């Protein structure tokens, strides 16, 4: 783990013979005197940073650490001057001392170079950095070189990497190689461009290993000859002993500014025939904390899916794992080659995993959408039924209301008709009553007249009788004086009785008359009241009948009042008539009474008289006869007057009765007219009521229809939405499936970096992922999954039941191949820059036409087939 629990290995440095020998030159002759075509610099200290930078550029100085031109590096830190400038002399690879040697051999130039670079870069302070764990050194590394302190870098083998990592981390540090600084110093002092570089020539085949200042462009062979080869090297390396590149043809390999060493080794490791036994030493030493064991296994078995989690691209190529491997496997090379070849695949693997994930998600969504559609259909059916029921209910109510209103109107009309008829009948009755009353009154008057006549006659008779009687009486007076007393009494009584009877008759008559009058009056009253009642009821109904409009109501009220007023008038007249009748009856009755009283008085007087008469009868018999005769005449006269008065009374009576009758007739006509009017009003009212009922019914029907319309629209809309969702989800699932199926996954076998051409559009040509068995394709999911709905799993891969999985060439017999699904579904993409964006999927090396025997040959192909273990 870089920096955390840091590993790495302690290497045997073998630096010694080269380091302590002095720095020799091996320079091409014609480069000796060359100078830059610019004026030599006078005073080194007066140079401005810009001048230093331009000088470095003219001198074409290249920093041997990383091969970048020194000028660029200095220019880069113009904006942000580094806090610390480090002169890098860390040679941590064995046999290598091409930076430490020159530093120790001419510290002056390196110090000057560092001072110039410090000024150019504007760095606050500058130091030299040297690797601490150098064991077998003969010369001592000074603590300070001309004012600059020498900082010791601790740590194990990939110390250079750790140091640069640590320094770069706090970003304001600039690392420049010591060689470049020396060249800068020379460029300033001698106005010379960079023509040479410092190279260590070492290795167990070299006679005298030494640090050389070689001019650029020299061939490796010349350098080796210069230092002398003891024997034939098995391998010649340019660069470090751990990270160098073995040379194939020494004549054509040249020394470049960034060449640090030329090494020649004798012993060659023949492969011991061991495979990796998983001793995990490489895992313990990897400075980046990677797991070379898994990476190596994944590459051997072509399980590129595992690569994403193993971070092969983070390998820095330090070679520690290969160094440590007891089975002498080339782990470092395999990891780096695989990282390179994985880069183009990373994109397609990740895209494929993403597509697979999208496909599954889409399937899941489409299933849920179908489920929602299913629920929506159920809800739809239920809602429709509910809507229908509600609609019927509303219509029923409207109809009922309508019928009720009609009934109501009919009833009102009937009522009005009845009222009208009643009123007429009543009027007729009143008329009849009045007629009767009239007739009765007339009859009464006639009767009274007749009675009067009779009384007159009786009186006459009586008088006659009386006279006769008187006569007789006189005669019998005497006799009857006494009798007369009794008779008188009797007569008195008779008279009394007669009087009484008369009175009673009169009373009766009067009562009859009164009753008649009262009846007439009560009838009138009743008629008036009934009319009033009707009117009130009508009014009440009207009130209740809220359907009537206000003005109808007033009209109704007005008629009612007229009705009442009419009834009032009838009543008053009836009263009047009754009063008159009563008065007349009373008058006649009083007259009767008077008569009676008189007769009774007379009788009584008679009696008394009789008695007196008895005494005086005798006496008076005669007088009485006289008296009687007088009385008889008086009587007669009285009777006559009475009779006349009776006649007048009778006449008056009749006239009154007649007047009353006419009044009654008048009232009757008016009542009838009013009743008719009321009836018409009632009819109009009826018409309006029905009309309004019909309108109300229509309105409610309309309203019911609209609400039903809206409800159905909503229900349909819900169902359509659900259908739409389901269809959309199904389309999405199909597209995801197509995208996933059609995606060509291409694999680059071997290290050749074919420039990536654009990924062939989906569906083009068969998938050529013959080798990548585990990685891209969840064939397992495709093969093992027969039709969607459960049922027995098609254990026996039946041609018909299986969908063509992407790794299938059409028609190839591919039996029982289980491909591992891709590793975890697309996690966050590997952060490393190289495998960032999904690189264009390279067409596989062998994108030849689909060979029908491909699946066949794959099974017995010699190289490890891709099918699963």
């Amino acid at each position, binding site marked *: *783990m*870089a*920096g955390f629990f840091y590993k790495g*290995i302690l*290497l045997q440095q073998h630096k010694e013979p080269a380091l302590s020998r002095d720095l020799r030159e091996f320079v091409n002759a014609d480069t000796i005197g060359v100078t830059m075509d610019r004026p030599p610099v006078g005073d080194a200290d007066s140079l401005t940073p810009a001048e230093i930078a331009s000088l470095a550029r003219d001198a074409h100085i290249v920093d041997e650490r990383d091969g970048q031109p020194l000028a660029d590096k200095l220019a880069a830190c113009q*904006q*942000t001057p580094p806090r610390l400038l480090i002169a890098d002399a860390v040679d941590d690879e064995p046999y290598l001392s091409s930076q430490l040697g020159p530093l120790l051999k001419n510290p002056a130039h390196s110090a000057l170079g560092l001072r110039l670079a410090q000024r150019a870069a504007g760095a606050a302070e500058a130091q030299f950095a040297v690797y601490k764990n150098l064991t077998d050194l003969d010369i001592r590394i000074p603590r300070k070189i001309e004012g600059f302190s020498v900082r010791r870098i601790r740590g194990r083998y990939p110390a250079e990497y750790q140091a640069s990592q640590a320094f770069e981390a*706090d*970003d*304001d540090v600039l690392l420049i190689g010591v060689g470049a600084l020396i060249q800068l110093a020379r460029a300033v002092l001698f106005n010379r461009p960079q023509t040479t570089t410092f190279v260590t020539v070492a290795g167990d085949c070299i006679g005298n290993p030494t640090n050389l200042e070689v001019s650029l462009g020299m061939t490796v062979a010349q350098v080796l000859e210069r230092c002398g080869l003891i024997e034939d090297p098995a*391998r*010649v390396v340019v660069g470090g*002993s*751990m*990270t*160098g*590149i*073995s*040379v*194939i*043809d*020494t004549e054509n390999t040249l020394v470049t500014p960034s060449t640090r060493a030329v090494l020649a*080794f004798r012993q*060659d*490791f023949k492969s*011991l*025939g*061991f*495979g990796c*036994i*998983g*001793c*995990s030493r490489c*895992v*313990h030493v990897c400075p*980046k*904390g990677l*797991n070379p*064991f*898994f990476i190596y296994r994944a590459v051997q078995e072509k399980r590129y899916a595992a690569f994403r*989690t*193993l*971070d092969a691209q*983070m390998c820095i*190529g330090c*070679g*520690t794992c*290969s*160094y*440590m*491997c*007891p*089975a*002498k496997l*080339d782990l*470092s*090379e395999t990891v780096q080659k695989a990282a390179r070849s994985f880069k183009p695949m990373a994109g397609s693997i990740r895209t494929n995993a993403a597509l697979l994930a999208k496909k599954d998600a889409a399937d899941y969504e489409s299933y849920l959408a179908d489920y929602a559609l299913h629920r929506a259909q159920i809800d739809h059916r239920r809602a429709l039924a509910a809507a229908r029921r509600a609609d019927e209910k509303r219509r029923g109510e409207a109809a009922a209301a309508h019928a009720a209103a009609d009934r109501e109107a009919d009833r009102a009309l009937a009522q009005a008709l009845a009222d009208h008829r009643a009123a007429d009948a009543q009027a007729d009755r009143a008329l009849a009553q009045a007629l009767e009353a009239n007739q009765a009154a007339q009859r009464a008057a006639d009767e009274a007249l007749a009675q009067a006549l009779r009384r007159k006659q009786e009186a006459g008779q009586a008088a006659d009788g009386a006279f006769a009687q008187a006569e007789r009486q006189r005669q019998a007076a005497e006799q009857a004086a006494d009798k007369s007393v009794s008779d008188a009494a009797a007569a008195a009584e008779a008279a009394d009785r007669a009087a009484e009877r008369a009175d009673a008759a009169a009373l009766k008559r009067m009562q009859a008359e009164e009753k008649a009058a009262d009846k007439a009056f009560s009838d009138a009253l009743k008629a008036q009241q009934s009319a009033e009642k009707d009117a009130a009821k009508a009014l009440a109904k009207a009130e209740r009948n809220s359907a009537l409009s206000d003005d109808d109501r007033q009209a109704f009220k007005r008629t009612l009042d007229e009705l009442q007023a009419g009834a009032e008038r009838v009543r008053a007249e009836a009263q009047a008539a009754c009063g008159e009748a009563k008065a007349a009856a009373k008058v006649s009755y009083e007259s009767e009474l008077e008569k009676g009283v008189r007769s009774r008085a007379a009788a009584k007087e008679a009696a008394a008289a009789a008695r007196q008469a008895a005494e005086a009868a005798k006496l008076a018999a005669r007088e009485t006869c006289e008296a009687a005769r007088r009385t008889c005449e008086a009587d007669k006269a009285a009777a006559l007057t009475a009779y006349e008065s009776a006649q007048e009374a009778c006449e008056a009576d009749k006239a009154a009765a007649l007047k009353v009758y006419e009044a009654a007739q008048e009232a009757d006509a008016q009542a009838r007219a009013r009743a008719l009017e009321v009836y018409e009003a009632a009819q109009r009212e009826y018409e309006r009521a029905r009309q309004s009922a019909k309108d109300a019914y229509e309105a409610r029907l309309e309203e019911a229809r609209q609400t039903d319309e809206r409800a159905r629209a909503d229900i349909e809309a819900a169902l359509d939405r659900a259908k739409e969702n389901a269809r959309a989800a199904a389309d999405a699932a199909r597209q995801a499936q197509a995208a996933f199926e059609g995606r060509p996954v291409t694999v680059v076998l071997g290290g050749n970096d074919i420039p990536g051409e654009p990924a062939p559009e989906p569906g083009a040509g068969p998938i050529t992922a013959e080798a990548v068995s585990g990685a891209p394709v969840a064939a397992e999911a495709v093969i093992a999954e027969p039709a969607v709905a459960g049922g027995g799993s098609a254990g026996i891969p039946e041609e018909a039941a299986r969908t063509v999985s992407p790794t299938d060439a059409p028609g190839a017999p591919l039996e029982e191949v289980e491909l591992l699904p891709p590793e975890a579904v697309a996690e966050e993409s590997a*952060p*490393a820059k190289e495998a960032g964006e999904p690189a264009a999927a390279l067409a596989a090396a062998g994108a030849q036409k689909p060979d029908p025997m491909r699946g066949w040959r794959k099974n017995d192909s010699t190289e490890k087939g891709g099918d699963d*273990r």
Partner: protein
Amino acid sequence: MKLNRRAAPHIRFPESNRTLMSDMIILLLVLCVLAFLYYGGRALIVCAVSVVTAVVCDALCTLIRGRRPNPRDLSPVVTGLIIALTMPATIPYYVVASAAVFAIAIVKHPFGGTGQNLFNPGAAGFSFAAICWPGLVFMYPMPFDRIPAFGEVTAQLYQNPAFVLKVGGVPTNNLTELLFGNYPGPMGATNILVILACLVYLIFRRTVRWQLPLPFLAACAAVTLLFPRAGTGLQAVFYELMSGTLLFGAVFVLTDPVTSPKRDSSMAVYGVFAGVVAMLFRYFGGYEESMPFAVLIANAFVPLIDRYNESLHRAIRRKHLEARKAKTRPQARTLV
């Protein structure tokens, strides 16, 4: 001159697979010599039979798989020795042979051969023998009494202290007897002192990393301390560790590099897990000797432990990358 291309690190660590295996074999041979001292010639013959069967079977299987057998690969020798040393000296030869065949032909090669098997062949072989012939495998002769090399074995057979512990008793042999292996037990697993010396040697030779056997023994001791079977505390721990092939297993069987996890932290987890399972098997298991079964079950969990460990390390790497990127990012901003 014309040279052919060679891979990057041009210098290599001097040690090779052979040396790795040879360390193990030297120690096992030491135990064989000890066994020879205790049980006479028959022990050697049993070891020889086991080793020869293993090697021959390995060669045959490699040929069947269509590859050239590699004479320098000594892993079948190690397997044969492990199987032989955990058996009693009086074991019939066919038992050892069939165990070796089972170990190599069924447990090792189908899973991928030398470096790729998933289960430890030695442990599997012994388990197979223990299950098939329990009567023969768990009856041990007393050391130093005469055992004829061939023909009928008439020696008196005793029980191992592990059996005594199993049935609940307290073993009678005292500490020195246990240390020097002077009690009836498997050929190579009785001499505790020598085995401990081998462990120390392996750890300092860096053939075996200490994170594997020590946590295993610590876990066994801890479980014993928590649930002592014979006596209390330290005495119980001594008896548990000394009896049966627990210590031998810790040194030779568990630390097989092929079937152990790859990182230090996962080795510790593997060791503890194997220890706990071993003790569980001892308490509740059917047989007195539980180490091989426990190792097999622990091997089944190695891929799981490794996978989770790798994802842990990946997370750590990612955190470091983010941390560094966070540091360098401000500078990038000012530039723009």
